[in-house]
C-alpha cells in the first residue's frame, strides 16, 4: 500500500506507542486523585503540557488538552463568543476553513451572531486588508486557519494578527495542518488562540490542544469537574496526551530535514504529473504551501473515479468533493478559489508523509498517468 493521505490522518509512530503504553495499565490513575499512581499520571500530564507548550513557544499554563482538533476549534470560537455575552455580535472567518470552524460559525450565526466569511484569491489566500476592512466595533473574534487542509496553502497569519492586535480583537488560528510541517510559534504568528491535533503528526486520534494566550478571556464549552483549570472538564486521557506530546516533540525535532525531504518528493510528483499528463492544474501552487500537500485537478475526469482506480492499485489519496445525496458537492475550498464545479470535482489531494519514499512517488506518477488516460478515454467531456 502507498499511503498518500497524511492530511486525513497519520499512523501512530512506534516511539509514540511506546510512550503511551505504561499509562493504560500500570500508571492508570486519575490525574485528579491523591495516591501515588495518580501522582504519576498527573506528573505525566504536566510533563506533556510542558512539551507541547515548548513545541509552539508557549508557556505550559497556556495549553489546554481537548478531545480533538475539532473540539479545540469549538472551544476557541464558542468560548470566546460566550465570554462576550451580549456585547459582541460579529466574527470574521474565511471561506476556506475546515468544517470544524465553518460549521461552528454557521451555528453561531443561527444563534444571532453576524459572520463575515472572507473570500480568497485564486491562490487560496485571505487578504489581511480584507480582514481590516471587515472589522466593526462589534467584532469579537477573528478565526483564520494557518494552512489549508486541501491545498496546503499557508495564510498570511503574521499580517492578519498585526491587524487584530492593532484593533484589540482576539485572533484564533486553526494550525492543525501547519503544525509539524512548518514552524508554528505563537509569538511569531502573534495569535491569541491556536488549535493543534495529535493524529496529524503521528500521534493518536482523539486528542488535541488549544493554546490560550495568557489574559485571553474564554468560557468553557464542556462543563463539569475542574480539569484543565476548569476550561475543559472531563478526566484527562493520559495515554493519548502523553502520545501527543511525544509525537509533537518528534515532529518539531525533525521538522527541518523532514520538510526538505518531503518537499522534494512533492515537487517530483508535481513536475512529473505536469510533464506526463496534459490539462492538469495544481491548485494554489504559486502560493506558499506546507511541503507535503498537492491538490491537482485533472480536466474532464471525476475525482472519485480517479480515487477508485488508485485504490485498486493500492494507492490511497483523497478528494475534496464527495458524490453523495443528490448532486456532488464540490469542495468549498476549491470553489472559493474560483474553480468551476467541474475543475473542483476533478481534483485529487495527495498528502505525503514520513513513510513515503521516492519509489512510492514514482509508482504513483505511473498509476496516475494510466488512470487519467483510461478515464479520459471514457469521458464524454473533452479534456
Amino acid at each position, binding site marked *: 500500500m502507498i499511503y498518500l493521505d497524511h492530511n486525513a490522518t497519520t499512523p501512530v509512530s512506534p516511539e509514540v506507542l511506546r510512550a503511551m503504553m505504561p499509562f493504560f495499565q500500570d500508571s492508570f490513575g486519575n490525574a485528579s486523585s491523591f495516591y501515588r499512581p495518580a501522582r504519576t499520571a498527573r506528573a505525566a500530564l504536566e510533563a506533556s503540557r510542558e512539551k507541547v507548550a515548548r513545541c509552539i513557544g508557549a508557556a505550559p499554563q497556556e495549553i489546554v488538552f481537548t478531545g480533538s482538533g475539532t473540539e479545540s476549534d469549538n472551544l476557541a470560537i464558542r468560548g470566546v463568543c460566550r465570554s462576550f455575552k451580549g456585547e459582541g455580535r460579529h466574527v470574521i472567518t474565511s471561506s476556506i476553513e475546515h468544517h470544524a470552524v465553518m460549521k461552528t460559525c454557521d451555528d453561531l450565526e443561527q444563534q444571532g451572531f453576524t459572520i463575515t466569511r472572507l473570500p480568497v484569491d485564486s491562490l487560496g489566500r485571505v487578504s489581511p486588508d480584507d480582514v481590516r476592512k471587515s472589522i466593526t466595533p462589534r467584532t469579537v473574534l477573528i478565526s483564520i486557519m494557518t494552512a489549508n487542509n486541501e491545498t496546503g496553502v499557508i495564510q498570511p497569519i503574521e499580517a492578519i494578527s498585526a491587524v487584530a492586535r492593532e484593533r484589540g480583537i482576539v485572533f484564533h488560528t486553526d494550525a492543525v495542518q501547519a503544525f509539524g510541517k512548518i514552524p508554528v510559534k505563537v509569538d511569531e504568528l502573534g495569535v491569541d488562540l491556536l488549535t493543534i491535533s495529535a493524529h496529524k503528526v503521528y500521534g493518536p486520534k482523539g486528542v488535541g490542544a488549544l493554546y490560550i494566550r495568557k489574559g485571553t478571556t474564554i468560557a468553557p464549552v464542556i462543563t463539569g469537574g475542574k480539569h484543565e483549570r476548569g476550561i475543559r472538564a472531563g478526566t484527562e486521557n493520559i495515554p493519548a496526551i502523553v502520545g501527543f506530546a511525544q509525537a509533537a516533540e518528534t515532529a518539531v525535532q525533525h521538522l527541518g530535514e523532514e520538510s526538505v525531504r518531503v518537499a522534494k518528493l512533492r515537487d517530483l510528483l508535481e513536475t512529473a504529473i505536469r510533464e506526463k499528463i496534459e490539462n492538469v492544474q495544481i491548485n494554489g501552487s504559486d502560493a506558499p504551501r506546507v511541503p507535503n500537500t498537492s491538490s491537482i485537478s485533472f480536466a474532464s475526469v*471525476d475525482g472519485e*473515479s480517479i480515487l477508485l482506480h488508485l485504490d485498486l492499485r*493500492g494507492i490511497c489519496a483523497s478528494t475534496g468533493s464527495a*458524490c*453523495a445525496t443528490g*448532486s456532488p458537492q464540490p469542495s468549498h475550498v476549491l470553489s472559493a478559489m474560483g474553480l468551476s464545479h467541474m475543475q473542483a*470535482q476533478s481534483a485529487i489531494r495527495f498528502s505525503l508523509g514520513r513513510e513515503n519514499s521516492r519509489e512510492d512517488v514514482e509508482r504513483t506518477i505511473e498509476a496516475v498517468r494510466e488512470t487519467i488516460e483510461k478515464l479520459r*478515454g*471514457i469521458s464524454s467531456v473533452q479534456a
Partner: protein
Amino acid sequence: MNEKKPDTELYDDPSDEDQETQPAQGPVLFYNDLVVDHFMNPRNVGEMPADEASGYALVGDPSCGDEMKLWIRVASDRIVDIRFKSFGCPGAIATSSMATTLALGKTLEEAAVLTDDDVIEALGGIPEDKKHCSLLGINALQKAINDYQLKKMMQHTEETDDLS
C-alpha cells in the same frame, strides 16, 4: 464480450484476506465486485459516427457533476449496436456500462421498458447514496430511442409528403 475478472488482484495489500470480513472498508467494498468490474472495464465505450447512429442522446450536465452521451444503431426494430461515453463518479460509469449491456440486442419495445431498478439489480445493487448516479444510463437510453423514433417519423412524413 469482455468478461474479464475485476482488476482486484492489483491490490497487493497482504491484509487482503480479512477485507472480506470488514464491510466498511472504503470504495472497493463500498461498490461490489461487479460494479467495480463495470467501472474498470466498461462495456460498449466509444462514439458512433453520425451516419451510423440511428439515435443519439446527451443527458446530464458536466457542470452539475455528470454527463453521458449515448448512441444506438437500430436494425429491424432491434438495438444492434450501442456506444457510450460518460463523465462522472464510479457509480455513473458502472451503471452506464450496465445499461448499455442490458439494451444491446433487445427490441426497441423491450429496451423502452428497462428501468433504473433493472440496471441496479443486474449490478447486484449499488450503495444507497449513489442511486442518483444510476439514472443517467436509462435516461440516455430512453432519449436515444425517442430520438430514433422521432427521426423515423420525420423521414416517414417527408416520404409521404413526397408522394402527395
